[in-house]
């Protein structure tokens, strides 16, 4: 998608947008409707030569051939019906006019082709002495007037038109009060033709009604009228071309232009009368309406003379120009006057410019502004309908455009603007936006107040232009196909997670419970029967490799050795540990050892007492109780046993007892026997206390579940003897059969234990086979289904 940069803020916009999304300025100028300037000019492009004479409404009043030229004799009209409505002072004024001699033939302003009188020309004449008191007072007061409010300026633009219209001035000029106007007209007539090309001055017979009428026509008619504008002469050279426009214009429109001539008392000229005959009826009616309004112009003129001082000043400075187009017949008196005499609506700065400034062809923003104007819009109309700030811009173009048009060129000379200027066109954008509401407001005139009868003076809406509705943007999320596919996948995943999953069947749970009961029953029977019956049919255990080593350690102890026994097993496994440790302790007791009992488990001391009580010949021992601190406590005990375990379980100093006399370090013990069911506990003793044993052997009686973790320490030599579980105890008991004589605890358990192991092996085998069969069936059924 191409981007179009905003001429106002410079931000990129989509070329589909008509207005900037950031500042609201129009991206595509309304000038695009012009037939010769439809494509926008972008920066860098070569500027296109543009005929500013195509500006419709800006030039039309000056160049319309239908306009009544200076010197035209106003047509007589029956205004008897309106006589009662006129105020008394106006009737008096008319009486004075009737007494004045006929107006002198007006002379158009030939100075530089400028239709407006210069300051010197418009200076009041000494004939002011003949003016009535009220008028002289106005003129005197007008000289002192300096500042005029804007709204009055707009009125002033329209009010002083009456003296300028030839049809109106004819009866007024001879009057004593307006003889200065007559002199001005006479001076104008005496001056040479303003057009350099030898174009004759505006004929005084020309009436301004047609041009004024065209201003009030809708745009389509204005456009139609402005189409031949480039071929027409300049606005001030309208006189020689008066015969042509009726041929180029539609008949009805030509009739509109020629009809005011009928309304005036002056007989129409040949070229004008011809198209007027071809006018349609409805247009003839319009002309008739304008005819009725035309005679009122002189009457309305008088109140303007009585109007504020600025009006008198204006009149003295701006006498009517003969080459100016006449006021439109259909327009209101105020509007027609403003159109007829743009020189009168000029502000002071423009009048000063007229005095000294020569026409320049230098392109200016005003010229650019005119180029941006739609064809058919007259300059006077813009001054009349546009805001003040816009009217301030307008005269610059006017003062430079009019002389050129009056001299040789029928139109304003095309200017070559830099491309960046044409691309930016800030004025154009503003006017393009302000044009639409102005056209709408043009139809609405103020009803009351000082602006009564005026239209377009005040904007209907605050601000520069009409309030624009903010650009509407779509709130729909734009997603690509891939994003939509991913979103759909995510939605499916979420939906699948939220779906409830059926629970497994209850039958499977029942079968599990039944199987568990069956297994439990079989185990109880297998284990209980040997115990109940006392059958000892299972042969002895196999001697493990560590058995002989362990027995050798115990046999190698000197008599009455000090042995430290660690009871670190839980009550749940006390049956196994007691069964495994009984043969070893029984064997040890043969040496009449001095036993010290210690435990890192809180239940260890009480289990130790319980165990020692079951021994056939209980020895004397010192129960050091519970050793707190885990590995740190073991390490502390290994470093300093008396400090770590000061008191016995009964609370007496342990190291002062005869059993532990002479023992100050861990290495002072002849052997350390550790009974544990936890591999971590056994490792802790190996790691923390093994380095402090020196030559004292560490023998471990462990549970069968701890064997895989403790045996490597035996293989590495960190522990010297090892008895594992019931099997190890049974083997140790078997090895010392002479001592125990077959009455040992392990022997009593051994058959039941063997039966339980055998049953477990059978169950593992049966379970494995059943699982294999089930898996085979499943694969077979799947294979059959696949086949």
């Amino acid at each position, binding site marked *: 998608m191409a981007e179009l940069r905003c001429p106002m803020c410079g931000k990129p916009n989509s070329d589909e947008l008509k207005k900037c999304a950031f500042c609201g300025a129009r991206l595509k100028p309304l000038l695009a409707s012009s037939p010769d300037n439809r494509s926008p000019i972008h920066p860098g492009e070569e500027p296109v030569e543009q005929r500013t004479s195509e500006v419709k409404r800006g030039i039309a009043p000056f160049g319309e051939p239908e306009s009544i030229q200076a010197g035209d004799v106003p047509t007589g009209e029956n205004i008897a019906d309106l006589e009662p409505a006129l105020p008394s002072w106006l009737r008096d004024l008319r009486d004075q006019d009737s007494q004045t001699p006929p107006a002198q033939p007006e002379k158009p302003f030939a100075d530089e082709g400028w239709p407006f009188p210069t300051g010197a020309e418009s200076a009041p004449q000494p004939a002011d002495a003949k003016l009535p008191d009220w008028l002289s007072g106005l003129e005197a007061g007008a000289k002192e007037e300096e500042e005029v409010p804007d709204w009055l300026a707009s009125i002033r633009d329209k009010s002083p038109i009456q003296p300028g219209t030839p049809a109106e001035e004819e009866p007024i000029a001879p009057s004593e009060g307006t003889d200065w106007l007559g002199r001005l007209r006479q001076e104008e007539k005496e001056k040479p033709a303003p057009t350099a090309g030898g174009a004759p001055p505006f004929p005084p017979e020309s009436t301004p009604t047609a041009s004024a009428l065209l201003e009030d026509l809708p745009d389509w008619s204005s456009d139609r009228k402005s189409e031949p504008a480039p071929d027409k002469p300049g606005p001030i050279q309208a006189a020689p071309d008066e015969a042509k426009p009726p041929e180029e214009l539609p008949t009805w429109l030509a009739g509109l232009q020629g009809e005011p001539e009928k309304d005036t008392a002056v007989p129409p000229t040949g070229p004008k009368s011809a198209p007027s005959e071809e006018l349609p009826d409805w247009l003839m009616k319009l002309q008739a309406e304008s005819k009725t309004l035309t005679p009122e112009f002189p009457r309305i003129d008088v109140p303007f003379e009585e109007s504020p001082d600025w009006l008198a000043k204006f009149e003295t400075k701006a006498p009517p120009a003969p080459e100016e187009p006449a006021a439109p017949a259909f327009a209101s008196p105020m509007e027609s006057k403003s159109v007829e005499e743009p020189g009168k609506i000029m502000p002071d700065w423009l009048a000063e410019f007229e005095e000294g400034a020569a026409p320049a062809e230098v392109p200016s923003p005003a010229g650019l502004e005119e180029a941006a104007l739609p064809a058919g819009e007259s300059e006077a109309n813009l001054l009349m309908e546009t805001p003040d700030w816009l009217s301030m811009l307008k005269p610059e173009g006017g003062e430079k455009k009019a002389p050129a048009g009056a001299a040789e060129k029928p139109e304003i000379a095309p200017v070559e603007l830099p491309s960046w200027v044409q691309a930016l066109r800030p004025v154009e954008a503003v006017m393009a936006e302000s044009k639409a509401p102005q056209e709408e407001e043009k139809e609405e005139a103020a009803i009351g107040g000082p602006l009564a009868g005026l239209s377009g003076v005040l904007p209907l809406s605050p601000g520069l232009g009409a309030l624009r509705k903010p650009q509407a943007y779509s709130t729909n999320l734009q997603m690509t196909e891939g994003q939509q596919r991913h979103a759909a996948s995510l939605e499916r995943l979420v939906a699948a997670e939220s779906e409830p999953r059926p629970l497994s069947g209850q039958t499977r749970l029942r079968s599990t419970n039944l199987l568990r009961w069956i297994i439990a029953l079989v185990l109880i029977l297998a284990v209980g029967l040997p115990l109940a019956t006392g059958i000892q049919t299972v042969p002895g255990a196999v001697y493990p490799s560590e058995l002989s080593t362990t027995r050798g350690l115990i046999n190698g102890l000197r008599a009455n050795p000090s042995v430290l026994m660690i009871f670190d097993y839980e009550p749940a496994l006390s049956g196994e540990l007691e069964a495994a440790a009984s043969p070893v302790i029984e064997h040890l007791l043969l040496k009449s050892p001095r036993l010290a009992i210690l435990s890192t488990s809180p239940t260890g001391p009480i289990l130790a007492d319980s165990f020692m009580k079951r021994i056939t010949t209980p020895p004397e021992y010192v129960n050091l109780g519970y050793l707190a601190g885990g590995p740190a406590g073991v390490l502390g005990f290994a470093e300093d046993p008396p400090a770590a375990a000061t008191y016995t379980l009964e609370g007496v100093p342990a190291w002062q007892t005869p059993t532990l006399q002479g023992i100050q370090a861990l290495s002072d013990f002849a052997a350390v026997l550790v009974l544990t069911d936890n591999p971590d506990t056994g490792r802790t003793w190996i790691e923390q206390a093994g380095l402090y044993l020196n030559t004292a052997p560490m023998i471990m009686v462990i549970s069968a579940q701890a064997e895989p973790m403790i045996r490597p*320490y035996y293989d590495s030599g960190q522990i010297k003897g090892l008895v594992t579980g019931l099997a190890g105890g049974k083997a140790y008991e078997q090895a010392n059969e002479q001592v125990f004589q077959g009455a040992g605890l392990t022997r009593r358990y051994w058959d039941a234990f063997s039966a339980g192991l055998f049953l477990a092996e059978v169950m593992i085998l049966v379970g494995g086979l059943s699982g294999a069969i089930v898996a085979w069936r499943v694969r077979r059924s799947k294979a059959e289904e696949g086949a």
Partner: protein
Amino acid sequence: MPNGINLDFVTAIVSFIFTLLVLSYLVGDNPLFRLAIYVFIGVSAGYAAAVAWHQVLWPKLFMPLIYGDMQERTLSLVPLLLGILLLMKLSPRTAQLGNPAMAFMVGAGAAVAVGGAVLGTLLPQTRASINLFDLKTGGSVSERIFEASIILIGTLTTLVYFHFSAKATPSGPQVNRLVDILGGIGQVFIAITFGVLFAGIYAAAMTALVERLSFLWSFIASFL
């Protein structure tokens, strides 16, 4: 103990009842089993608290603090202070005050554990694995080599099994073929180890069952 009541008899009755309550788990989780569990937990906790007071706090903290000399009292203030700070962990508001004591405990425990593991397990076990190839230690050469090779292969392949690095390829992460094979062998050794552990646990449990059934039968037989 009052006359006429044998403590061993009471103990035997209680043991018998609670043994049956625990065995009731065969029919599933039931209140009897829960009752036995709750009693065991309560008794164990109470016994542990009594042991901690009688064998740790009183003899090692309060006795030196009360009856000890100035040095013992001063030294006893350190564990007392750390203990009090550790009790601050009970309240969320004062939990941060227990951080120093907790940090001391964790730090000391970690230092002891790491030191013991390095000096008592890692280095000795490494040395033992190397010494397996020492043919002078005794036994036949073939047996020593076979045993040492099994240990070596088992150790290496087990370590390789826990090597999870893979090479990034367009088709996805790809493990080296040799590593994959060695990891599979290590998986076999790990499976054997777990089997041995299960056998040891089963043997221990079976021994416990035998002992309990023997007790039950003995208790019942005492009344027959």
